[in-house]
């Protein structure tokens, strides 16, 4: 048996979950709808939108700080996991090598 056979079989193509194409098309439709609505409104409406945006930005500043902290925390946690994984892997590598040698 070719030792690569299990590797080849492990990479057999798999189908995505049912309805995948439909979900893609829904996203396409949503994106097209956003693009169509993106045309800039008349001048008076533009001012109203700008004022509304300024208020929204102010209100969201506090929420934004929380969101940033959330994102920073998640990123830091992910990095910590990566670091611990790498450290754990190398410690075990040393252990494994020592064991393999002592077995003979």
């Amino acid at each position, binding site marked *: 048996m070719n*030792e690569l056979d299990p590797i080849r079989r492990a990479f*057999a193509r798999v189908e*995505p979950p049912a309805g995948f*194409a*439909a979900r893609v098309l829904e996203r*396409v439709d949503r994106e097209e709808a956003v693009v169509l609505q993106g045309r800039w409104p008349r001048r008076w409406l533009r001012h109203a939108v700008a004022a509304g945006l300024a208020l929204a930005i102010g209100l969201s500043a506090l929420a934004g700080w929380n969101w940033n902290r959330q994102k920073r925390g998640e990123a830091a946690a*992910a990095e910590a996991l990566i670091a611990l994984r790498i450290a754990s892997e190398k410690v075990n590598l040393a252990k494994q090598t020592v064991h393999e040698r002592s077995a003979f």
Partner: protein
Amino acid sequence: MTGRSAIRGAVDHAAFGDLVREHQSMVFSIAQHTLQDREAAEEVAQDVFLRLYRDLDSIESPQHMVHWLRRVTANRCIDAIRRRRWRPVPIDESFPAAEREPEDSLAIRTVRRLMGQLPARQRVVLALRFQEELEIPEIARTLKIPLNTVKSHLRRGVEALRRGMERTGRTES
């Protein structure tokens, strides 16, 4: 909308749906084998097709489309691995029972599990080689990396998988 090419103009909603169905297995499989996470794989696969829809102008032929899909999927997977938390999904959740081969051997399951330990680029190189059966020069062209880098990733990836299978004592005899 302006700037649609003949290809994009000719691809209506239904036709794009057909395109998706034709290539969804390839795109999803590259993502699934690389990320070992069904949910993340679907997210990447959807993003890839959405991007295809936006970039249809740039597609020159059906062959180019396949090359484009492989390249964009591979790059999105590499980005996803680097961004996401380092927690491969347990193999049983990643490959539901309905999609496993009838005689899904421990070796196959071990290979899939070990993929989660490999660096991002090694994973995509392995997926392009063993799933898509691309030759090394084609992998290099797809990923836009040097030939020797592909060989290195392939060699190290296969070595890591083989070593992992030996260590867990789950090679098939």
